[in-house]
């Protein structure tokens, strides 16, 4: 783990020192050792702030999407995990980032922690998380401490991850992990899929009724880049009403879902960003599963591919 961290620091230092990039985006420790946050490093001396651990869940590709980077001409180094890289590939497929101005450090990733699972184990605020091999030790502000297996607190999508190794990178740090075999897994859907139509409707109604339209899901989404022009904000056309109620909120989420269809690799950033814990992963992952069954397609796998809805095949076997 620490060797990967060193390698990231080394890569960042070289890129900055050689003038290859103007700044470098990685992860650093947050307010407490229980969380990692994005870090923008501008000088080679600062690279020691960079860390690498299973806490580094943020998808840094988000900072590359439209209107970012700032200023527009800047050259940027960026760290991507396997899943992050697929969102980068999705942007590259559409020609929305200039790969000449990027220096991508790819990190094979065995999984990141779902902090919500850890928090749920304590009544107090978790302030410190340590890793020792496959063992995780978490301590609270009041000093309560628990140990558990890393596998138990990984994000559910990390188990059976289809692309642990980056699909696109200028430099790879750390050891590549074995590529997954066979069909991609879409975990956590069975229970939802088994519900009947009315139960699904009820579940979604309950989930979306709490949406406060904070746009966190949309802003954090690495492939959702319309910013102020998002049709969810538009009054003309009035596709989505501005009234905050279940029906309009549902449509609001549908706009996001259908607009990232074919480009969303289920990185889960929206889900983790939601302040009211709407299970956004559910429908997005379900959509990706359907897309896979429909066209054998997975988003962001190949730079030379077009997102599925911006192209077609005459011999698509769909419909009647």
């Amino acid at each position, binding site marked *: 783990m620490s060797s990967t961290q060193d390698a990231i620091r080394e890569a960042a230092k070289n890129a900055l020192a050689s003038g290859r990039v103007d700044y470098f985006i990685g992860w650093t420790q947050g307010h407490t050792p229980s969380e990692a946050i994005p870090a923008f490093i501008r000088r080679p001396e600062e690279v020691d702030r960079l860390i690498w651990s299973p806490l580094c869940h943020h998808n840094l590709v988000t900072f590359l999407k439209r209107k970012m980077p700032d200023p527009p001409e800047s050259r940027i180094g960026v760290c991507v995990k396997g899943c992050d890289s697929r969102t980068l590939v999705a942007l590259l497929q559409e020609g929305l980032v200039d790969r000449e101005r990027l220096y991508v450090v790819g990190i094979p990733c065995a999984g990141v922690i779902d902090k919500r699972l850890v928090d749920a184990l304590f009544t107090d605020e978790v302030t410190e998380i340590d890793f020792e091999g496959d063992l995780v030790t978490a301590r609270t502000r009041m000093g309560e401490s628990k140990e558990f297996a890393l596998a138990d607190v990984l994000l559910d999508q990390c188990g059976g991850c289809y692309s642990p190794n980056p699909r696109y990178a200028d430099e790879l740090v750390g050891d590549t992990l074995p590529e997954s075999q066979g069909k991609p897994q879409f975990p956590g859907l069975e229970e*939802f*899929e088994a519900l009947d*139509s*009315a139960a*699904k*409707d*009820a579940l*979604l*109604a309950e989930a*979306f009724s709490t949406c406060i339209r904070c746009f966190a899901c949309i802003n954090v989404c690495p492939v959702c880049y319309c910013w102020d022009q998002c049709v969810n904000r538009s009054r003309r056309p009035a*596709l989505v009403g501005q009234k905050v109620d*279940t*029906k*309009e909120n*549902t*449509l609001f989420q*549908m*706009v996001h879902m*259908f607009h990232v*269809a074919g480009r969303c690799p289920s990185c889960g950033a929206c889900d983790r960003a939601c302040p009211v814990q709407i299970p956004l992963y559910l*429908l997005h992952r*379900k*959509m990706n599963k*359907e*897309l896979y*069954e*429909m*066209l054998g397609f997975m988003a962001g796998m190949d730079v030379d591919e077009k997102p*599925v*809805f911006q192209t*077609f*095949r*005459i011999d*698509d076997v*769909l*419909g*009647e």
Partner: protein
Amino acid sequence: MTAQTETRTRPVKVIAIVCNWCSYAGADGAGTARLKQPYNFRVLRVPCTGRIDPLLALKAFQKGADGVLISGCHPGDCHYSEGNYYARRKFELLDRMLPHLGVESQRFKYTWVSASEAARWQSVITEFVGHVQELGPREGRAL
């Protein structure tokens, strides 16, 4: 009759969004041939199925439609060459997702009816409205 049974038995409302060149003309042909059809559907004309954003279908459900039918030219016959190929992918995804959004799959259909297929239009719309009527009016909450 109680209010509840009343809603359950009221005629359903179906929106049919059709392309101008094939399916609208097919429906015209069905009219010219006096082919009887259900009362409770309303046709909306657009130039091409490629013009139809799946979100418009969702909007229709949200606004209270009990069923939404999309119909255009057969693949290969699009007046604009390619519109229905794009539509086919988009509506296939919508078709697959709707059951998971709390809308029974029988309430949505996308299909192809050419300008010369008046009889096909009649059977498509009759069957579709029939299926929707079997399910009855929607009392959905999310959409």
